[in-house]
């Protein structure tokens, strides 16, 4: 008698502690239904998988992948899905979803597709549950109590992992782009060139100025040629920043020559009314380097001219 009471008390305690834990998907009432649900999904693995793959195909999702690939991914996701229902832990699924995202993102799969696919599976499974429990409405209700939160959580996990992976790729690309796109190069003693390619936003402009000023110091540059042939558009903010870069370089003892102003950009600058009077501009990079050489006292002579 005593031991039975003790056992009961222990049970209650355990229930309370599991209720509090975030990782649990089910309320204790429906916990007993979990094995049944999992067993159902195990038993009908083949048909449900096939059904899902067909629905994906019908909806023209994942068209970049072959049917075989789709089916093998479908199988993996399905098994992971069932595992989550069985264990209540989404860690494994999250890892798999990241890995899957890494593989399918380069093939142009969009976030919408992924969410739709997961929701399709949710739909397929829910329908099969309706089918199975249609005679016992009360039981169906309880089964859905167990199933719905888990299914939602799975959908959120998969979609979330996909978006995370996408963002990671974007960040990585931004970083590498940023590093690649602002080289400060020494072409002669005391002469640096800074070819700017691509759109200049505020962040990049600041980083570029930092690199240039550091470069002036390390290379002891007297003249810097900034070539903006590769900059598609110059707005007021960028022009203003260029002027500031020129001033800051001058404070460090280096003169700046700007080259590669296209006629459109030059017109824009004049229209905006940017004060370029302090800037030394030369038409193209070649002219800029020649001017810089002249300022530094270099003279470049063809070898056969020199012999004469």
């Amino acid at each position: 008698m005593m031991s039975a009471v003790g056992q009961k008390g222990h049970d209650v305690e355990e229930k309370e502690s599991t209720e509090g834990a975030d990782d649990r998907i089910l309320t204790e009432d429906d916990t007993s239904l979990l094995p049944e649900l999992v067993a159902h999904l195990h038993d009908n693995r083949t048909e449900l998988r096939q059904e899902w793959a067909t629905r994906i195909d019908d909806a023209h999702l994942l068209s970049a992948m072959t049917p075989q690939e789709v089916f093998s991914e479908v199988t993996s996701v399905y098994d992971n899905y069932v595992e989550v229902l069985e264990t209540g832990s989404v860690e494994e699924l999250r890892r798999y979803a990241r890995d899957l995202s890494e593989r399918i993102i380069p093939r142009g799969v969009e976030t919408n597709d992924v969410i739709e696919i997961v929701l399709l599976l949710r739909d397929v499974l829910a329908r099969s549950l309706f089918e199975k429990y249609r005679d016992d409405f009360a039981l169906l209700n309880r089964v859905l109590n167990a199933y719905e939160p888990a299914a939602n959580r799975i959908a959120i996990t998969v979609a979330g992992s996909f978006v995370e992976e996408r963002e990671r790729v974007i960040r990585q690309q931004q970083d590498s782009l940023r590093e690649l796109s602002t080289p400060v190069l020494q072409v002669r003693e005391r002469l640096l060139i800074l070819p700017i390619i691509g759109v200049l936003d505020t962040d990049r402009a600041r980083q570029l100025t930092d690199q240039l000023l550091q470069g002036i110091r390390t290379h002891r540059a007297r003249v810097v040629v900034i070539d903006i042939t590769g900059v598609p558009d110059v707005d007021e903010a960028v022009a203003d920043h260029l002027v500031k870069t020129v001033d800051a370089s001058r404070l460090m003892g280096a003169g700046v020559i700007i080259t590669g102003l296209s006629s459109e950009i030059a017109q824009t600058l004049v229209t905006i009314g940017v004060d370029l009077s302090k800037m030394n501009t030369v038409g193209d990079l070649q002219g800029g380097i020649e001017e810089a050489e002249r300022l530094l006292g270099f003279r470049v002579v063809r070898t056969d001219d020199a012999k004469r």
Partner: protein
Amino acid sequence: MPNAEWSRSEEPLRVSILAQGGYLIASIHTALDDSQLLRFRSDLLQRIGHDRARGVIIDVAALDVIDSFACHTLRSIAQVARLRGADTVIVGIKPEVALTMVQLGASLEPVHTALDLEEGLEHLASSGLSGSFLPGEDLA
């Protein structure tokens, strides 16, 4: 501000002014407040007359901030020095300081600036004209 710092301004300034071959080299060692800057200005201008200097180099490498008052003072030093026959070069502005100055709109124009002491001396030696685009123009 000058009143508050009056007692401190009686202390020896943390600026060394050295004479070197007709040039004066003034190195600022720590941040100067407004009254100290003004004292530095009068000290330096006196030395220019006293030493009959042809050129002045002001080394600001130790400064982490050059505000508009400092810019103004440095410019006025250069202008007065010019009137007394000496060219001024300001050297040692750090990259981050240069950027901040530009963003604040503080300008040293038309004072010549150079990377460091060596460059500054070279500029003066090439009978630098302050305000020219580059020292290299004179060298060439």
